[in-house]
């Protein structure tokens, strides 16, 4: 099987290790991948701020780049929901809309791709430590992905999994919300960090680098010993 990688701009610039880890897991599972180097941003920041025209321009571009892809996989629930859930709300040219209709069902978030498309719940990863998991909002409520990451985490050898209090509560990132309302955003992040620390976990896993950026930022400010980690990074441990 050959897939196209959709690497969101945040991952590309700040967290390339997440994408590298994802590639490593895919390779282990015998999945071929290609990376189209012209890809940039899916347009979510513009869309979420109400700039639909600007977002449409980036959507058109995204769809043009990926138009011949058979399967697309991305390590982000948020960017996947931008394409699957929010692109249909944009005004798009007829060819772009056609591409969207074709690509929508072929675009997968990473954990969902492993579990539902490849039927893999154990990638053979090993990690020693106590792990907790934060449900990213878009992943959970726009895409309905809740069990897939948990199944994958539970099958990592050597880990102890512990659920987080209020695991489904937002970490406070919310894209431009984090800078428009920094104090509310930080208050939400601090509560999330406190809940994470209460579990006694060594590692907090999430499936979206944007949430992890918020969680890591707050944990780091609190000089916490808990390590934030993307699911792909955890699954690449020991393989």
């Amino acid at each position, binding site marked *: 099987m050959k897939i196209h990688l959709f690497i969101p701009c945040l991952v590309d610039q700040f967290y390339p290790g997440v994408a590298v880890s994802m590639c490593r897991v895919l390779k282990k599972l015998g999945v071929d991948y290609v990376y189209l*180097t012209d890809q940039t941003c899916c347009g979510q920041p513009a869309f979420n701020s109400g700039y639909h025209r600007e977002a449409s321009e980036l959507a058109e571009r995204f769809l043009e780049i990926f138009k011949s892809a058979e399967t697309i996989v991305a390590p982000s629930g948020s960017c996947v929901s931008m394409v699957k859930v929010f692109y249909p709300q944009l005004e798009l040219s007829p060819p772009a809309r056609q591409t969207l209709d074709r690509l929508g069902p072929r675009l997968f978030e990473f954990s969902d791709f492993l579990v539902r498309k490849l039927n893999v719940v154990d990638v053979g990863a090993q990690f020693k430590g106590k792990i907790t998991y934060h449900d990213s909002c878009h992943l959970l409520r726009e895409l309905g992905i809740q069990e897939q990451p948990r199944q994958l985490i539970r099958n990592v050898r050597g880990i102890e999994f512990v659920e987080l209090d209020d695991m489904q509560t937002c970490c406070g990132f919310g894209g431009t919300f984090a800078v428009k*309302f920094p104090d509310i955003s930080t208050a939400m992040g601090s509560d999330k960090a406190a809940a994470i620390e209460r579990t006694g976990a060594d590692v907090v896993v999430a499936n979206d680098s944007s949430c992890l950026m918020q969680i890591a930022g707050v944990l780091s400010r609190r000089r916490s010993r808990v390590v934030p980690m993307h699911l792909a990074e955890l699954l690449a441990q020991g393989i």
Partner: protein
Amino acid sequence: MITEPIHFKETARKNLAAADLRENLRRATDHTLRLRQQAVSAVPEWEDLRAAAHGIKKESIDHLAGYLESFELRAIEAGCKIFWAETASQAVEYVVSVCRQRGASLVVKAKSMTTEEMELNPALEAAGIHPVETDLGEFIIQLAGETPSHITAPALHKSRTQIGRLFAEKLGIDFSEDPKELTRAARAVLREKFLKATVGISGVNFAVAETGSLVLVTNEGNGRLCTTLPKTHIAIMGIEKIIPRFDDLRVFLKLLARSSTGQKLTSYVTMITGPRKPREMDGPEELHVVLLDNGRSELLTHPHTREALYCIRCGACLNVCPVYQRVGGHAYGWVYPGPIGAVITPELQGLQRARELPYASSLCGSCSNVCPVKIDLHHMLLWLRKSAVEARLTSGAERWIMKMFVATMKHPRLYRWSGLLGRLAQMIFASKGKGLRIPHWSEGRDFPPLPNKSFHQLWNEGEVR
């Protein structure tokens, strides 16, 4: 009617800093959510009920004129007087004139957000008629001279100590922090009012088109007293409160109680069809029903937000909203706070004045997820943001940033250069191993350091193929 812009951000910041307010909010919302969760998880057909309720509300709103006319016909047959008010001021004028004609000097009121929206109390006061709020939470708020901060629990921002002090000062009783004692004190004061008042004013939870019935849902019994003892009952309802059939109530009653308080059924569900009938012993001699538009019909023309008219005012979206939980209801600047307020305040009071509200959300979607009638609240906020941009209500700086952002993202080379630029800035300005300090971000959190190479570089160098 609000005339000044709502300063959500400013109030939110102030409220965030008030530790006792946050504590009160947190305690109340956590508690209510826990009860709601228990009640909902005991109903296996919960999702079917939500879907059914959404369907019934859609039907009601799609045929709004027809169902309202049917309601009017049946209600008149049952002996009601119906008044159609296009604006809040028409409704207020009508209510005041009825009270005057009945020579009322004292009016008892059951909790009604619609009358808050109309600003009825100040108008009654101005006419020399004393309105007494009888819901305990509203009574507290009225004594304190404040406005409700929640649609079902108006005094949730207050602690028992604050309420104890308020009662001691205003009611002249001994200070107590015991909720039971405070409740009994309010009961004693208000029982007198109930027995004296000549007019009772209530809201309406559901109005049944098929039978002309009004349905009121209350826990304290004040709704029953307001609609039983005074000679005149005035019921005020937003036109969206209509449901087609009596039978539909079985769906809504289950959803409303569980969503708002976690009860299986609210203590009192009162179904009123007309005033007291000739062979009945009590009940009001006349029943006026005010059908209020006040901007609601305008929402019918907005395809993306008209479903906000499906709201049954359960308050679940407030309780679950991580923003509401931290800033409280008053930050939203008008009667309806939380996610539903962030949608309907701009729609009913103008996006111009409420321009900050659609952004007062991290778009986490919890509100849509708990809504018993499946209103897609957080997606509506996105549509309102689009309207704000189209109406040029966002700042010039933001528009410029977005333009630059898109221009950059449209050109891969520009995008990569800006990545390099960021790395350069980090080398110069950030300490080793740390990220840059970003305005608005770095006050409470650290910004992640950019790694040496982007994924794009690693790919080109063949490290991940």
